[in-house]
């Protein structure tokens, strides 16, 4: 099935669907459409993957550049306003 105006209308709801923020009636309408429209199924799947990637983007952040880390540690150790004398 080629995309049509109905698809365009439903595309606007795909993210709410992914986030579980769609009403039950809209959910049922969207799911009915998805069963018949492989194009929208693919779009939903790739949007889901995009969101999953973003959720995992900071799972293992790269280490700080060493010079920046050294500056920050030095700055913190100089600061220490909380130090109990």
């Amino acid at each position, binding site marked *: 099935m080629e995309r049509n105006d109905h698809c365009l209308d439903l595309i606007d709801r795909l993210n709410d669907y992914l986030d579980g923020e769609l009403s039950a009636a809209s959910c049922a309408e969207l799911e009915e459409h998805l069963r018949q429209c492989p194009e929208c199924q693919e779009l939903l799947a790739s949007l889901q993957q995009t969101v999953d990637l973003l959720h995992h983007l900071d799972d293992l952040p790269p280490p700080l550049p060493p010079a920046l880390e050294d500056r920050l540690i030095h700055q913190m150790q100089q*600061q220490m306003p909380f130090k109990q004398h």
Partner: protein
Amino acid sequence: MPGPIIDLSLYDDEQALLAGLRRGDPDACTCFVKRFAPLVYARALHLLGDADDAENVLQTTFIKACAALPEYTGAGSLSSWLYRIASNEGLMLLRQKRPQVALDAVGELAPDETALPHKTTWAIDPARNVLDGELRREIAQAIAELPDALRTVIVLRDIEQLSTEETAERLGISPGAVKVRLHRARLRLREALARYVEASSSDR
């Protein structure tokens, strides 16, 4: 010059780390930075899209956290507390730098959103592939290229994983506006990823 080797596991426990910081132990400072700074910096970089600005936010965040430590009650995790300071600092910096383009301005959103998304099928395992540096850089670049109004929403909603309501509150916009922007931002990032996946597969 590398500093002395220290045992980072000494402060694995958050309460021990807090106690170490409060008594001014330099090793606790080092552990605090090594443990939390990479993620604070990564989040700031996503939010601001600029390395100098991200470094600025990183330093301010740790200075403010130090100053606030005596009053920190330990409710919630230390990391959530720090990331909240960092995203508030980041949003403040954005507003200062671009006062002429408010974060709630819809005018800066390009009117290209009615186009049907690019047709392509692809499958990426997110948990494995974000460890791939090239894909991570590609996503980071695509996020950096979004207009501020879209980038701030996607960072708070999909990277920091705040709720629609919390995101709306932080940005001072309505939950409806958050949803519209999130939708546009996700479609744009999906397009960027689709182009990347297509280009990578045609290279093989």
